[in-house]
């Protein structure tokens, strides 16, 4: 094996390690609590390459507004599905889209894009 080939091999190994570390060893993101005035709680979720914040905390029993802003034109993010709340919505690009839910039961609820590639979490406390 010549020097060039050795470099290719080394480069490949480093790249594979980086891929595994970057994609598979992702730390859990901090959950962000929705702003609440006691009557309604609101949180803005930016949709670009994922859902930011990815984990949101809602108070049980208070109606919640999830305001999705889709900045990512990729068809992957065209739809957002909240199966536990029976909601499937088409998100317009670069516009706010409000989804109202009633978080009556405590627990963790996952929502996804239309093709289930990306997901976010709603934690009801």
């Amino acid at each position, binding site marked *: *094996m010549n020097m060039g080939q050795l470099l290719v091999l080394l480069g*490949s190994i480093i*790249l594979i390690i980086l*891929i595994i570390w970057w*994609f598979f060893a992702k730390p859990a993101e901090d959950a962000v609590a929705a702003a609440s005035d006691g009557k309604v709680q609101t949180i803005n979720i930016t949709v*670009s390459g994922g859902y930011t914040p990815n984990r949101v905390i809602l108070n049980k029993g208070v109606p919640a507004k999830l305001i999705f802003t889709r900045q990512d034109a990729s068809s992957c993010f065209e739809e957002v599905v909240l199966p536990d709340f029976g909601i499937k919505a088409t998100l317009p690009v670069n516009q706010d889209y409000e989804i109202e839910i009633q978080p009556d039961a405590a627990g963790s609820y996952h929502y996804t894009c239309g*093709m289930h*590639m990306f997901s976010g979490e709603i934690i009801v406390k």
Partner: protein
Amino acid sequence: MTIRNLFIFCLALTLPLVYSMLGGDLPGGNYTMAVLATLVQFVGGSRFMRAAWSAFKHRAANMDTLVAVGTSVAYLYSVWALGFGGEVYFEISSLLITFILLGQWLEELTKGRASKAIEKLLDLQAKEATVIKDGQTVKTPIDQIRAGDIIMVRPGEKIALDGEVIEGSSSVDESMVTGESLPIEKRPGDTVIGATINKTGTFNFRATKVGQDTLLAQIIELVGRAQASRAPIQKYADRISGYFVPTVLILAILTFDVWYLLLGASLSAAMLFAVAVVVIACPCALGLATPTALMVGTGRGAKMGILIKSGEVLEAASDIKYILFDKTGTLTEGKPVVTDLVGDDQPRLVQIAASLEAASEHPLATAILEQAELLQLKTLNVERFTAIEGKGIAAYLDDTEVIIGNRALLKDREIMLPFESEMLGLENQGKTVMVVAQAGDVLGLIAVQDTPKANAASAVTALLQMGLVPAMITGDNEQTARAIAGQIGIKKVVAEVLPGEKAEQVTAFRQRGKVAFVGDGINDAPALAGADLGIAMGSGTDIAIEAGGIVLVKNDLEDVVRAIKLSRKTFARIKLNLFWAIIYNVAGIPIAAGLFVGVGLTLNPAIAGLAMALSSVSVVTSSLLLSRSRI
């Protein structure tokens, strides 16, 4: 720029590259190719780059990542080769982007068709109606109409809301909401459904349900929830999808290494194998397999008046063994009718019986009074009416005693029964038999029975052919229950079940296999909830939308058969889609990696990209075909 226009733009720039690839002579040679490919890469491909970068920042990867990496590697290699004198592959990166844009454009078109069900239901909604106020007719927007308002409907007009006919009559086409193909006659007292079409006459109705309470609004809500629901089978695809793209990237690196380092292939050949691996992998096909089939299946159901509430229901319906029916009102009409008359003077027999029953509130009385009406007989005035509990009725007609009742009543009055064998025969058929006598002489017998619905037997036969075991649960006595079950073709009968015990019976059946329960949504809610699959039969606007996993808008047993067929077909389609999506990736990646070069099977990266683009389209098309399958 829309995807369609972007595709056309990229296609126009890519065609000269293809011409060159096929041996054509392009002015400016490789440099012209570089300019064209650069435009395609940065105009057509920018959307993939941006999306891939956004995902990358979130430590995530998706199809855009694969497209961005695959095309960038081919493009950057070609730029490098242009500078250092190697072979260029500009047509590969450009063709890839063009093909993937084509795939996305087609996917957009087909996906749009798959998700049309709710829009079509919303379009059914009437915009305004003619309200009668103070004797005047006023065109009123639908959202301003309140429950209790009187609405006039002319021939050909859409009925705006749910309500009850109070004046006039007509026939109404309800097919768009209930799936019923024949027009339904409407008279005062009948209910009408909003969004259906009035055919022949003019009538007035009182609005009873408005806004979100109407049947159509409830259907729209239910279909929307169903389409947002999970199908448990999806979780396998979900589990794969998180790891899929990074794993493909690692496989591509390994492919490159094996070819370049172990097998001694040239840098360009190894690069092309790696690019082919990246661009043939299609996570979208996996992601689209379940939701598109669910969307088409539930949408088709809604059109037929079959409301499937979730993806879980589809799975439950796919391996049901027992199908339990509540008897009264589900398998039978739910009201007794006179089936047999025994006696020499039958009109007289019915007339006296009806005269006695005229003041009674017993359910059997209605059957006899309806029979008298059918025979156009008037009831006679009877006096000194006495209801004898558990036995019958006695009264006086022209100073002679007339009675209607059972054997016990005859025994009390010491009357001999001349029709003993006929009575036994009728009782053996599960019928309720009443004896009518005047002045101690028996005039004859009247047999009454709740009759099976016209299509009960054919529905049961169809279910048997589908491999299901139908069974009947009823509060009736064993003899009556068996007689009805025999007429319909049901062998398993559970009789003398108290209303509260139905759910326990469902649990008992579940020990032996998966159970579907068919009943009305109001009285049978616990049994519907206790079964693996609850099928709630409704009738018009009174459907109990909360009960059962499947709600049938109209009270038609054939819809039970159709509902199970549709559920099974939709679930089978989900499985087929997932199977092909997995097989496509499992088979496609090794071919692209050059594993079968020995047998002459290789894949140009551009063709791999085309296969990737078309695999998503084929999954959506497969789901769309559900709307054409025979149910």
